[in-house]
């Protein structure tokens, strides 16, 4: 029997960690992920876990600790956000290239500047090429479920890659929602023991990790990593299937919402997908054939599967909660458009960058986006491809949504200082 509870996203992940009982946690506080090591420290303090909690002096050392511990034969976890992960940057590459299946709870937050503590995906999107598996969550339930699936994926002998499990800062991390937890023993059975073939503290053998790799070898190691990432697709689905057996909850590379007969669709990542679904529900009631795809697994990118899922759609809006400053659209857009290239008949595609630094996105925004898609279908004119939504504009005529809500007389914004 599942345990019914109501938890914040941070608490949900902390509980997942407690149930897994990892060997080492290296962490340094940063908003909005701070609560995770805080909750976890209280489990350590109460003797509920066996974990060595290493309260390091920086995120850089947090990731260094995890890399070393995992190489030593331990299961290591961390939690961070934004600048914290940015400080780990170099080590993210070390972790994946050393093939160490560390698990990171990333609570997505905007990167500086200006300094901002609220949600967008600029932190993880910036790290998209670091060789980590990236799994995103819409809800607290998904943050919990994804965290439980991370280790069986990353630690699989054909994969051996670190996994970052992402959720949206504050929007889910600090919001209490209903959820179902698994019993501790079921979690332990599902996640299993960490049994690496080689590790530093092995009884009968030595291990040397982290050589200088001359050009004669470097490329071969990158090819190995690339192949591991490709193999991860299969394992991700196998683990999802095993998870469904235990929980009844179904996961894939992405979630298709009302896509079967959809003529227009939105593709996006994270908590905003829920808001988008509410818009789809409303539009469906008006008889409009709207659908939505929520990407769960961004690395590896489910290219063929996504193309298939969008093959029958006439117009698609890809929504990026991160800028890539390519002057040509955000990262999810670039990947999605590339995925669709091989289709014999491609939908028209537009890109919206939205929600940066905690800018809210509402059901009304989504309704506007779908109506833009409708007019693309009608006129067969794509219009501007690379768009932003939700920002104030000098020229009122340029607006495609109403902005009153961002100008609410809410003194919060004036008074709130930054806590980091």
């Amino acid at each position, binding site marked *: 029997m599942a345990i019914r509870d109501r938890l914040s996203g941070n608490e949900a992940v902390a509980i997942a960690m407690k149930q897994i009982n990892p060997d080492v946690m290296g962490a340094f506080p940063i908003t909005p992920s701070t609560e995770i090591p805080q909750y976890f420290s209280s489990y350590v303090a109460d003797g509920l876990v066996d974990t060595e909690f290493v309260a390091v002096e920086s995120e850089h050392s947090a990731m260094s600790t995890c890399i070393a511990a995992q190489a030593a034969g331990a299961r290591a976890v961390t939690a961070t956000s934004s600048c914290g992960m940015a400080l780990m940057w170099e080590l993210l590459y070390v972790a994946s290239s050393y093939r160490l299946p560390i698990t990171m709870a990333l609570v997505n937050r905007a990167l500086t500047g200006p300094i901002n*503590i609220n949600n967008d995906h600029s932190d993880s999107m910036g790290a998209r090429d670091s060789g980590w598996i990236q799994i995103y969550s819409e809800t607290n339930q998904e943050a919990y479920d994804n965290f439980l699936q991370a280790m069986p994926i990353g630690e699989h002998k054909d994969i051996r890659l670190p996994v970052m499990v992402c959720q949206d800062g504050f*929007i889910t991390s*600090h919001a209490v*929602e209903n959820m179902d937890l698994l019993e501790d023993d079921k979690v332990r059975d599902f996640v299993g023991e960490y049994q690496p073939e080689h590790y530093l503290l092995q009884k009968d053998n030595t291990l040397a990790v982290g050589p200088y790799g001359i050009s004669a070898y470097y490329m071969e190691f990158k090819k190995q990593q690339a192949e591991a990432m490709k193999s991860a697709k299969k394992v991700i689905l196998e683990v999802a299937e095993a998870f469904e057996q235990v929980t009844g909850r179904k996961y894939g590379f992405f979630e298709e919402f009302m896509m079967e007969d959809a003529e227009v669709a939105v593709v996006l990542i994270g908590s905003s*997908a829920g808001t988008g679904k509410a818009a789809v529900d409303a539009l469906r009631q008006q008889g409009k054939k709207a659908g939505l795809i929520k990407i769960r697994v961004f690395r590896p990118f489910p290219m063929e599967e996504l193309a298939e899922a969008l093959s029958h759609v006439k117009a698609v809006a890809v929504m990026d909660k991160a800028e890539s400053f390519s002057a040509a659209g955000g990262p999810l857009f670039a990947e999605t458009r590339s995925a669709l290239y091989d289709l014999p008949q491609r939908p028209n595609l537009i890109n919206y960058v939205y929600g940066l630094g905690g800018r809210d996105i509402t059901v009304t925004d989504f309704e506007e986006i779908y109506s833009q898609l409708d007019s693309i279908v009608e006129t067969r004119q794509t219009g501007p491809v690379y768009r932003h939504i939700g920002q104030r504009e000098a020229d009122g005529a340029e607006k495609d949504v109403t902005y009153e809500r961002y100008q*609410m007389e*809410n003194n*919060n914004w004036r008074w*709130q*200082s930054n806590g980091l």
Partner: protein
Amino acid sequence: MGKSTVEIRWHGRGGQGAKTACLLLADVAFYSGKHVQGFPEYGPERMGAPITAYNRITDKRCTVHSNIYSPDYVIVVDETLLGSVDVTSGLKEEGAIIINSEKEPEELRSLLGGFKGQVCSIDARRISEETIGRNMPNTPMLAAAVKISKIVEQEQFIRDMESSLRHKFTTKPQVVSGNMEALRKSMEEVKVG
């Protein structure tokens, strides 16, 4: 029971516990079998700064993750915010605002820029001082919110709160009785105008 989706906005100051009250309300609704969301709006609060928190309470799971712009209820934990924050912004006319104040509802209405719906007042400061022994407006505000919004049935609310408090304060029964007294008193005393 009321409608299938109830949206509530809390206004308070950092350190007064508006966020805690918001989470408590989510708890109360959760125990009654509802789907809940309780979330504060961040920037991080600092002591004394105005903060906002939200509840979305529904019969079926609500997927929306945006803030609440047209709440059914607004709860103001600190009366002094009335001068600086547009607390009735977007508040539905058929909804209500509940304000922690010793003033009468009609007197408060004049400070609310023409809001036409229900205005309720509750002297949470006095009630908490009388029952709990210090100014802890959370508990009385929570009770008033439950009574006015009817998101859960009152008797069940009282039962749930009692068992939850007993669980939390096993070694401090006086805390439980004080809080329970605060809840009951608040439900009796909330003034609807």
